[in-house]
């Protein structure tokens, strides 16, 4: 069995976000990059499946050479080999086209990724990839069990979950608690250095989305404190000042 796990290379969740003076570019100085948290759930699930199903895990990232430390981390966690599509992602459609191009003739039984990236929060790459490949897709997946070629899935829906079944191959957008994040051990870290990482060039994509500029939210004013002995005052303020009650 062959599993493709698609990962993003994104700023750590605690990063302070800033942009260049012309507001056109993300300022990456001093920012720690990580595997997207949702993608890491996908990778962790793949590692669980590998142990049970004798699977091979290929990890894929669309990004420049600067993403290789993040890719190596995925190899340390348990992926067997890696592919980097040598291009800076421009939007979801661009990334989906690259993933589909790699997956098309790869013979993958399962394609896993996070439900969304935590930089652009689109949540659409899995659906686009599946549509391009003519495969079913499910997201957000919080439980996935495999019995032969049949998967039983719990998908989160608003206010609860939906249980469904689907046969391989398919695409899944993952989230917790699908699996526990794995901490790479020493052997994993050592072997990650020598596992194959193939660099492929991107396919041409005609884009129809342009990011014009970025901005930051206006700073928040100071909090207005209400005395703990008079909480009714809070409702008064919410009703008459904030007008939200």
């Amino acid at each position, binding site marked *: 069995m062959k599993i493709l796990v698609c990962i993003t290379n994104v700023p750590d969740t605690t990063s302070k976000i800033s942009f260049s003076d012309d507001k056109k570019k993300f300022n990456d100085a001093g920012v720690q990059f990580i595997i997207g948290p949702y993608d890491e759930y996908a990778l962790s699930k793949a590692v669980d499946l590998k142990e049970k199903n004798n699977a091979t895990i290929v990890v894929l990232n669309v990004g420049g050479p600067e993403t290789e430390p993040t890719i190596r981390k995925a190899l340390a966690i348990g992926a067997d080999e890696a592919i980097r599509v040598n291009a800076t992602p421009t939007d979801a459609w661009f990334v989906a086209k690259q993933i589909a191009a790699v997956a098309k003739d790869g013979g993958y039984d399962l394609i896993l990724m996070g439900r969304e990236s935590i930089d652009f929060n689109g949540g659409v790459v899995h659906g686009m990839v599946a549509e391009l490949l003519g495969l079913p897709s499910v997201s*957000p997946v919080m439980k996935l069990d495999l019995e032969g070629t049949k998967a039983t899935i719990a998908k989160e829906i608003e206010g609860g979950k939906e249980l469904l079944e689907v046969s391989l191959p398919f695409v899944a957008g993952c989230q917790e*608690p699908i699996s526990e994040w794995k901490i790479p051990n020493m052997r994993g870290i050592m072997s990650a250095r020598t596992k194959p990482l193939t660099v492929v060039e991107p396919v041409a994509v005609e884009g129809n989305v342009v990011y*014009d500029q970025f901005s930051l939210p206006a700073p928040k004013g100071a909090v207005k404190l209400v005395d703990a002995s008079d909480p009714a005052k809070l409702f008064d303020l919410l009703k008459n000042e904030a007008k939200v009650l």
Partner: protein
Amino acid sequence: MSVLIFAEGVDKSIKKSSLEAVSAGFALAQKLNTETIAIAIGDYDAVALQELGKAGATKVIHVTAGVPAYPSALAYASVLAGAAKEVAASVVLLSKSALGDGILSRLSVQLNAASATGVLAVPEVSGDVLKVRKSIYTGKAFAELSLTGAVKVISLAKNAVPLKEDGVVATVESKTYTVSDLAGKLVHQKEEKASGDILLTEADIVVSGGRGLKGPENWGMIEELAKLLGAATGCSKPVSDLDWRPHHEHVGQTGVKVSPNLYIAVGISGAIQHLAGVSGSKVIVVINKDPEAPFFKAADYGIVGDAFEVVPKLIEAAKKL
């Protein structure tokens, strides 16, 4: 030409977020000088469908035949693609949700359309280009995008556009469209859903509890306060990790993103990953016994105090509202 809006429902009525999308669609159609058409898939009665008229649709396409009985992004995407072609839609609007994302991703490929999710206002028209604004880095920043090409597919963030309530009586037409065979590959088993609760993502007010509440047995007061305010309940990640509350209530970076009018956080420290899920809220109230809790920096109103003393008093006050 037209603007086509997908209306998502819950329990046989149209969701408020979808009505907002219809209102945004109406405002956009005015700018484009074209028609506002809503499409509802599934079992709705005439009263539910006329909510779409009030929100701004002049025409409603109602699809009941040939679609699965439960919401299916795969099936709905093919229905919407069929409808969009039939009414020559230049823009398809949805409201941002897991179902909306699933539909939008496939639809944008099928229609060869530019797409954007979680847009924060009615798109601006500049010739053939639509300019939209969305939040990125999970609420920490904004991006302005230009969408080009003949067709655009856009999802709207919740509670971002005011609801229009003075629309017309819409004409309703029943239709069927071809559904992709792929949809049948996902075999629905069952749904496990807390019934009767206000949906967290749809709620105008959210009361959320954190680890400061000490244990699941103390959620009674959170639920009571929420009930009195007509609010949904949420929680922080450790609370759902510890199984004190179900996972679908977990708010934040790795959980549900909410954008209510009012978010009340009780016993939540305000870690950056929690704030990422609530930054779209209009007003934030924090109740925490630690005056140094980081959440106060992100709050509009606060009470420094012990939740076990403050919340019962709030409940008494809420009864008098």
